[in-house]
């Protein structure tokens, strides 16, 4: 039997539909996602369907899962992967990294009875959003750091300040020297136009993690990296901030995307052309940074002064 048959999930009726308002979401919401899973270190495993990535951790009696994947079908595939690795250990706890549906939208399909842990800033949005399939937290925490020991799984959740989304937290496993954080440092150039990134505080807030003792960084997308990959990625943001200002100073019109694209290839390709997804996203990255400087930052989070104290 195939995984699809054993899970019986493909195209099942009435999938949870997130915030879609038009009919017909069942095929893509229910589509099976092939998941690969690898042991990372100690009792920590990582899973990915090629684009999204998260971790799950073996406890004494069950599994602590981080996030839920992108769709109901993805959530079920994630659940299937964990069952395959730990066939007799149920998912008893889900930890939300942040509130976006593409990472945490489908606990109702992953493990509907699990305890769910989220930062208060994350859960406020989830409760307000009322998205179909996204379950609110059963345990909310606030502040900057909180240590957990759940079923023998020890980790610390850290909210360093505004980075991406709301209440976006890192999971730190000091014994394993591993840091996991979603939709912040991602290999390659930034994703499209940095959706819901809080540009002003982003880099200094992320650099706070450099004060912790870890050597493995698991991002929310693509491949696992290390301290150098983490630092190099933040350097890219710093450089884009400079280039965006230079482009405005040179008279580039942010509303002329064809010209922004031309400028990107002319000025950025020599330095960043070999970065993963340069062709797909770099012009959008530049456009977003230009908008940031022209508008001044977006909302409360986008205008907060970063806390730069070491963690």
């Amino acid at each position, binding site marked *: 039997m195939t995984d699809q048959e054993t899970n019986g999930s493909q195209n099942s009726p009435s999938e949870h539909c997130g915030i879609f308002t038009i009919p017909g979401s069942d095929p893509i919401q229910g589509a099976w996602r092939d998941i690969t899973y690898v042991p990372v270190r100690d009792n920590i495993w990582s899973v990915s369907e090629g684009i999204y990535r998260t971790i799950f951790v073996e406890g004494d009696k069950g599994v602590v899962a981080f996030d839920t994947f992108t769709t109901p079908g993805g959530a079920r595939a994630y659940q299937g992967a964990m069952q395959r690795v730990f066939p007799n250990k149920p998912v008893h706890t889900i930890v939300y990294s942040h509130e976006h549906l593409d990472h945490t939208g489908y606990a109702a399909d992953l493990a509907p009875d699990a305890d769910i842990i989220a930062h208060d800033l994350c859960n406020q949005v989830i409760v307000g959003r*009322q998205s179909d399939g996204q379950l609110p937290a059963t345990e909310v925490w606030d502040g900057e750091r909180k240590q957990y020991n759940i079923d023998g799984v020890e980790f610390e959740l850290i909210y360093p300040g505004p980075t991406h989304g*709301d209440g976006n937290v890192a999971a730190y496993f000091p014994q394993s020297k591993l840091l996991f954080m979603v939709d912040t440092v991602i290999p390659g150039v930034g994703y499209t136009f940095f959706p819901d990134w809080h540009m002003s505080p982003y880099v200094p807030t992320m650099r706070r993690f450099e004060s912790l003792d870890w050597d493995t960084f698991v991002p929310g997308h693509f491949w696992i990296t290390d301290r150098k990959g983490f630092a190099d990625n933040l350097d890219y943001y710093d450089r884009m901030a400079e280039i965006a200002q230079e482009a*405005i100073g040179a008279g580039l019109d942010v509303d002329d995307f064809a010209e922004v694209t031309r400028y990107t290839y002319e000025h950025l390709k020599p330095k960043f052309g070999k970065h993963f997804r340069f062709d797909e996203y770099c012009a959008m990255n530049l456009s977003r940074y230009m908008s940031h400087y022209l508008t001044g930052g977006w909302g409360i989070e986008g205008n907060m002064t970063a806390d730069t104290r070491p963690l």
Partner: protein
Amino acid sequence: MNEHQGIFTSQAVQDYLAAPATVSSEQLSDRLWTASDGKYRTVFVEADNSVVAFDTFGTPARARAYAAEIARVIPGKPVSTVIYTHDHLDHAGFASDFAPGAEIVADEMTAKVVAMRGADGQLPATQALSGTEHRVNFDGAEFVLLNRGPVHGTGHLSAWFEDEKVFYSSDTILANARYGLMPDYHIANFVKIMRSFLDLDFERFVPGRYEVTDRARFEEGCDYIEAMQVTCQAAFLNFVPIWIHDVMAGFVQNELGDRFGHLDGFMEHSGQTAIRIVHHYLMGGWGLEDTPEPGILLAE
């Protein structure tokens, strides 16, 4: 001499900030004008002894050109009041260069963001408004300021000039399709809130960019964004690679071209707009502004 520089940190922008600009104006009624630098647009009102101006334009040089244009058409009356439509620097960033002694009026959330930001040249509010509707009178100039919820930026105020049947709303609906990546738009409630303004009696609509238009094209603008929301969901549901600009542009242009292809900028901008909107559905919206009942944001 260095210009006020907003949040720029690079000296490379000094020429941009100082570049000479021309702001021209068009009289909409005995007391009401609209002003434009060729892209951005705002309004100002002649009061009994002074001028009430909305926003400042987006560079120190443009702010000075705005002040000069007001002085040209309404000589002898100083700008006593500046109303920030929202917090963004490209509209409201340079009161220091425009009218440094004026009262600054803003929604309380705009005032909060402006204070947090501390941008060089953007003056903090001296009067913060709370709530959804305010019938104001500044030096004899009466009109209505409205914040019906998050549409764009933070603490966004629109203005209704009842006697002139003019509605002014900056960086919301446009008379074209030049929305780009819809920076800091709040997609969840945008069309619902903008359509609610159709309960006002207005014939002319002044957007924050490009040309003045009318009620019918305001409604068409709402229709366009709404159609884009439906089409972007359809793209996702049809397994379109939503992260690739040219593919998303092709999809929405094919789906919406017959109905909206006549809008200026449709071919150039619809791809970016589509990528922004489809990610709203993928991610669930951005922050409390994009929740179904965002009224909480109107209070402290």
